[in-house]
């Protein structure tokens, strides 16, 4: 059990690629911190540096306050679960799990006890004599977990441990990992590119893009108060609608306009975004979560100042909810990482109650929960929240 701290950690590969840039991160004792970001953003590199598998170009990594930059992996007392599981193919499940203990001078009976305990928790008891190739993907994943647990290390590092499983098993294993980690209370850094996995697992989530840390916060805060456009667009599904807009003052008070649409900005939102004032009369990026667009016909009252009329292009039926896609004039262009998601840029997505009668081809009145608007600086992408 331990604290892990990264202080301005940078990694530049010999070929000149800077995979991680001045990363500051502190993981407290017993915490499950999730590193999330698109593929190639440097998550694996960061994890490998913590494990000691990769040299650090500059900065300091400390475990329990002691810098470990020059400590060999085996002396860091950290267990890692690899994306490919990396099970020893020639050893049985039992020997895979017992392997590291044998080299750490653990007593025979103690090894037996720990492996038996891990096998019980992970429901691997019937398979102890099997070789990895005789196991299913989910079972292999469990063995990889078991190999980490039996060591009772100071910390777990997990690199996309569920990415090789099918969707259903992934959801199941996700819950099991969360429970396991809480039960053991071992400090854990979990890497994934899947924002849902990140949100459901992490006590705190660190969002990384292009080797740069964007924001670290508990999942709820990340969702409600994204620090910048990248986090806003990366976290949440369907993604937040991001629209090029103008912030202006009209007779009735401050409004935000985009295309022919106009929304009144409530006082509470203004108070929460003190930086917004500086952009009066200028361009900003407006963010609206899909669930903050609703059908006023379903009973929830809406201020006429916050209703816009939208041409509905597509209605997607999901059972528990309906996604309505509407055309709007211009959409903000967020980031390379999300630029391929052209659809979300050209349209506004509303996540509505399934009872809504809004239909494709219709021009419908859609209400906006203006208390939940987000504003971002068009140049820097930073949130205008105070």
């Amino acid at each position, binding site marked *: 059990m331990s604290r892990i701290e990264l202080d301005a950690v940078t990694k530049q590969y010999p070929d000149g690629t800077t995979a991680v840039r001045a990363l500051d991160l502190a993981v407290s004792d017993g915490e499950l911190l999730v590193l999330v970001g698109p593929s190639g953003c440097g998550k694996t590199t960061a994890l490998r540096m913590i*494990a*000691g*598998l990769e040299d650090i170009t500059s900065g300091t990594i400390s475990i329990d306050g002691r810098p470990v930059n020059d400590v060999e*992996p*085996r002396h860091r007392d*950290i*267990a*890692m679960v*690899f*994306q*490919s599981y*990396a*099970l*020893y*193919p*020639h050893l049985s499940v039992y020997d895979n799990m017992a*392997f*590291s203990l044998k*080299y*750490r001078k653990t007593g025979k009976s103690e090894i037996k006890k720990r492996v038996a305990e891990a096998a019980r928790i992970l429901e691997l008891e019937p398979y102890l004599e099997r070789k990895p190739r005789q196991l299913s993907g989910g079972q292999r994943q469990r063995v990889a977990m078991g*190999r980490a647990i039996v*060591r009772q290390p100071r910390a777990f590092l997990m690199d996309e441990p569920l990415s090789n499983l099918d969707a259903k098993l992934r959801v199941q294993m996700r819950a099991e990992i969360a429970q396991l980690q809480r039960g053991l209370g071992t400090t854990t850094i979990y890497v994934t590119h899947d924002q849902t996995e990140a949100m459901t697992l992490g006590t705190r989530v660190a969002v990384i893009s292009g080797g740069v840390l964007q924001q670290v916060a508990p999942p709820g805060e990340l969702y409600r108060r994204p620090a910048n456009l990248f986090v806003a667009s990366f976290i949440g599904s369907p993604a937040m609608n991001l629209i090029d807009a103008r912030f202006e003052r009209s007779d009735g008070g401050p409004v935000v306009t985009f295309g022919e649409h106009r929304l009144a900005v409530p006082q509470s939102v203004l108070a929460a975004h003190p930086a917004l004032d500086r952009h009066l009369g200028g361009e900003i990026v407006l963010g609206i979560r899909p669930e903050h667009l609703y059908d006023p016909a379903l009973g929830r009252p809406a201020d006429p100042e916050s209703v816009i009329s939208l041409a509905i292009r597509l209605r997607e039926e999901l059972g528990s909810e309906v996604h309505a896609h509407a055309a709007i004039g211009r959409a903000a262009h967020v980031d390379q990482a999300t630029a391929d998601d052209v659809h979300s840029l050209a349209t506004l997505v509303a996540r509505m109650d399934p009872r809504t009668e809004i239909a494709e081809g219709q021009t419908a009145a859609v209400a906006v929960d203006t208390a939940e608007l987000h504003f971002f600086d068009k140049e820097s992408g930073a949130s205008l929240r105070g």
Partner: protein
Amino acid sequence: MAAPSLTPERRAATRQGPGRWSPRRLRRKTGTWGLFALMLLVAVVMLYPFWYIIDNAFRSGTQFDRQSGHSLGGWRELFANLPVAGQMLNSTLVCVAAIAIILLVSTTSGFAFAKLRYRGSGIVFLLVVSALMVPLQSIIIPEYINLAKLNLTSSYLGAILVYAALGTPFATFLMATYYRGISDELIEAAIIDGLGYERTFVQIALPLSLPAIATITVLQFIQIWDDLLVGLLFLPPGQRTITAGLATLSAGRTTSIPALMAGSLISAVPAIVVYLIFQRHLVKGLTLGMGK
């Protein structure tokens, strides 16, 4: 040729129940027979020398001249003129020692080239592999002079070292290629599990590379056991290998073919035995790593 599993179209053809002599079936049949005949021909060509050896090993000189009648004459002559047991032992000793050196060097250096990429390792690897291109004949005289100066031509040691030097480049190349096929994550898992590189090599890499080791063992065994040039040149008469010994049989004015055949037969046995022992691993080595 013919795939073992049914392709969809063939399965469909089967369902429709084609006539016994449908054109497609006929074509397939003639194809199979053609292949069979070809393989038979190849087998005869390959096996004929064997038959010739066995047939003539059991004749005396006169029986060989007449090409009729069999006896143990050739064998008697062989054992009278050659210390067969001693030379077989010499062969074994040289083979085992040389292969041991080759395996020791090629596994460790192959692992280093594949997994411990250090500065300039690519160049060094290239140098090692380029040694494959040097024909033995072109360096054997300087080699001999070198070893003679070092006084290594009066015992087994010179030949063992020469064989080891000849076999190591290819073995290193093979091992490095094989180790590259083992995922880096597997090695790293062992490192994180608390092993140093040495132990990771012994506990993880070595057991996983048994097929490659078997391949090298068989290839080198056959090569060294059958080699004549190095054996004749670098070994003193008392330490001659069986192949070198057999060569001296035919060096006299009268060569006894039956004795030579008997000797060849006996000297072929160990190679065949080694092949049979490792065959299982060889086949595994060739198909390993295909598919997940």
